[in-house]
């Protein structure tokens, strides 16, 4: 039960944050170059992503669960630690925060500068929108397939992803501008903590260890990863302040 809830939540948050990024690109291209080619590209990218999930999901379902959890746990660990690293460095001031307004303005400027296609499909709009949706979506597909696969229940993770897609899409349609108020780094931090937690738990199970308290240990690992990450945010902030002080003094 705990597992299922956390799987849906992790998938929901990861999908939401990537959807916000994809929506920014789609809005910029659609507003500037027109919606026909942009929406065709969005449909094509979603179709390609569905094929990726449809091809990988059933394959994972037939693999033995322990071997699968070992591999998936390792992948989630590498992936989760990447997300956490970036989120912690952004909190610490060592990386710029994601600015959807700035990205929107840049995409819009590039779209206006590109020469217009007068007949048929606007290939500039198609390519940029397809790439934006497909690449951001690939990350979500990877998370859905791995965390769903490790539970032998891709549909469960897909529920979270589809739910997030609908929420972000509805918000995008309502405001018709980039969702710059979404606390993106906070969501990325939470997703990083969750992916790393699942990675530790499943890689451990796949390796054959017995967790103290069995499934309840997942919550213990979650608390441990969250606490370690918060301590590192504080350490990164201290280091950033020190670096700035040295730079000012020099």
């Amino acid at each position: 039960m705990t597992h299922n809830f956390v799987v849906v939540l992790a998938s929901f948050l990861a999908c939401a944050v990537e959807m916000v990024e994809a929506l920014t690109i789609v809005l910029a291209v659609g507003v500037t170059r027109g919606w026909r080619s942009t929406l065709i590209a969005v449909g094509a990218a979603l179709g390609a992503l569905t094929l990726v999930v449809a091809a990988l999901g059933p394959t994972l379902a037939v693999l033995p669960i322990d071997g699968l959890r070992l591999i998936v746990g390792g992948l989630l660990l590498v992936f989760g630690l990447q997300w956490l690293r970036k989120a912690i460095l952004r909190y610490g001031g060592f990386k710029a925060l994601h600015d959807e307004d700035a990205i929107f303005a840049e995409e819009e400027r590039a779209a206006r500068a590109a020469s217009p296609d007068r007949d048929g499909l606007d290939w500039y709009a198609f390519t940029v929108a397809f790439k934006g949706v497909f690449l951001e979506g690939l990350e979500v597909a990877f998370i859905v397939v791995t965390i769903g696969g490790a539970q032998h229940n891709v549909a469960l993770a897909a529920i979270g992803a589809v739910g997030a897609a609908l929420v972000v899409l509805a918000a995008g349609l309502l405001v018709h501008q980039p969702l710059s108020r979404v606390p993106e780094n906070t969501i990325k931090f939470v997703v990083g903590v969750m992916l790393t937690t699942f990675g530790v738990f499943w890689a451990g199970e796949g390796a054959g260890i017995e967790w103290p308290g069995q499934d309840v240990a997942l919550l213990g690992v979650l608390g441990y990863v969250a606490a370690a990450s918060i301590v590192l945010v504080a350490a990164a902030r201290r280091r950033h302040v020190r670096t700035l002080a040295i730079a000012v003094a020099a």
Partner: protein
Amino acid sequence: MKPIESFARFWYDFIVGDDWRVAIGVAVAIAVTVFAVDRGANWWWFLPAAVGGLLAMTVLGGARQPARSGGES
């Protein structure tokens, strides 16, 4: 860049990311856990400890570099 090279670069960036030492560290930590279990030791604490160490290493390593503009996911 050749198509195969750019395809490989995409997957490398996608999976391994900015710090390859994390991927190597995770592989080693899992291998040690499998080895310990194989020898009959239930080292459940090892993987969390290794992950905590890897996270500290990669964050504090990244915090030595100056702040960059832009914001890739």
